[in-house]
């Protein structure tokens, strides 16, 4: 297929959202009609709603403003690429802020009822029998945010225009739920609520060829790997009397490795060791040096983030 075929089209009005079954190889376009509108976005594995898009994992891999060329990842222990951002005509999205909620508008603005992304998501997800507790942190499309000097996230106005869009390519069958952000008394959508256009396409061969390969690892676990694969069906938490702890790689056992350092090596070490952190504990300082060196030489990703390059 060389031309994208339109499968369906929707307009989501202010205060609403829409759950869409987006199958592997299909593209969801979220498009500005008037411009200046933020869209919150949730996403679940269509065949197992316990696998859902995780903003924390996504921002660890791609930073605070994922754009074209980024993936949306599911939460550990699944950690699979669910969607690929194939196109983004603006390049300003947010994974810092959670969805706005009724509490925000009541606590800060005094509203008894106000359009808010949590409740809009919950209502859209109800079509698939999900509950308000299933709404997860949203990937905020077109939302212009940053972090100020004292470490607080802030939001500001956006500069999107009619026709600006983000194309999300499904890498697995998902339930994709975009909604018109309910914030009209914040800068998020320039103090007005506007409709958004949604379009689902079948991806072309060229679209599919744009997706970088990502690793498939044993650590990307599914319920088949879980010690307890059953979804809990009631609300109270009660201790399992048969539970026996079985944490991986325990007990942690520390052994000593004597490392003789020549006078030259000792001088080198003394010049670079982190006495500001370890004081006179040379063993701890040398261990820090060893693994800091390892990170610099061998790590393919930011420290603490998973590498996504296929080996």
């Amino acid at each position, binding site marked *: 297929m060389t031309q994208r075929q339109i499968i369906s089209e929707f307009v989501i009005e202010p205060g609403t959202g829409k759950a869409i079954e987006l199958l592997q190889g299909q593209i969801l376009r979220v498009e500005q009609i008037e411009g200046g509108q933020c869209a919150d976005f949730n996403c679940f594995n269509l065949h197992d709603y316990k696998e859902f898009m995780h903003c924390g994992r996504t921002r660890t891999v791609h930073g605070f403003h994922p754009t074209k060329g980024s993936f949306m990842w599911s939460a550990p222990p699944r950690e699979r690429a669910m969607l690929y951002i194939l196109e983004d005509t603006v390049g300003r999205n947010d994974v810092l802020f959670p969805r706005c909620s009724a509490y925000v508008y009541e606590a800060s603005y005094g509203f008894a009822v106000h359009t808010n992304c949590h409740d809009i998501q919950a209502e859209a997800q109800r079509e698939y029998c999900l509950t308000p507790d299933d709404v997860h942190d949203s990937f905020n499309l077109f939302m212009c945010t940053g972090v100020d000097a004292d470490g607080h996230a802030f939001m500001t106005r956006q500069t999107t225009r009619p026709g600006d869009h983000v194309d999300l390519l499904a890498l697995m069958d998902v339930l994709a739920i975009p909604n018109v952000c309910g914030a009209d008394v914040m800068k998020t959508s320039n103090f007005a609520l506007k409709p958004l256009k949604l379009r689902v396409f079948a991806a072309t061969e060229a679209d599919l060829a744009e997706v970088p390969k990502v690793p498939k690892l044993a650590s990307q676990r599914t319920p088949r790997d879980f010690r307890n694969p059953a979804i809990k069906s009631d609300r109270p938490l009660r201790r399992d009397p048969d539970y026996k702890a079985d944490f991986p790689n325990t007990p942690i056992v520390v052994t000593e*490795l004597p*490392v*003789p350092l020549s006078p030259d*090596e000792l001088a080198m070490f003394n010049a670079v060791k982190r006495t500001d952190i370890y004081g006179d504990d040379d*063993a701890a300082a*040398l261990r820090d040096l060893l693994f800091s060196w390892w990170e610099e030489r061998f790590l393919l990703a930011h420290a603490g983030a998973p590498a996504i390059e296929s080996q």
Partner: protein
Amino acid sequence: MTDTVVKLRLNQQQLELMDRTIAQGVAPDRVSLVRLALREYAAARKAEISTKVPQ
């Protein structure tokens, strides 16, 4: 002059990472790997200092 012995305290996961690195041919053994890390880490810091523009 005699060598100074620093007794590294490492757990089994840290040793595993070292051993996998050694298996790639980076160094012949654990002690050599630590010494290599020290030389390369110190050289990188020296290079950083020498490229800094004086204030």
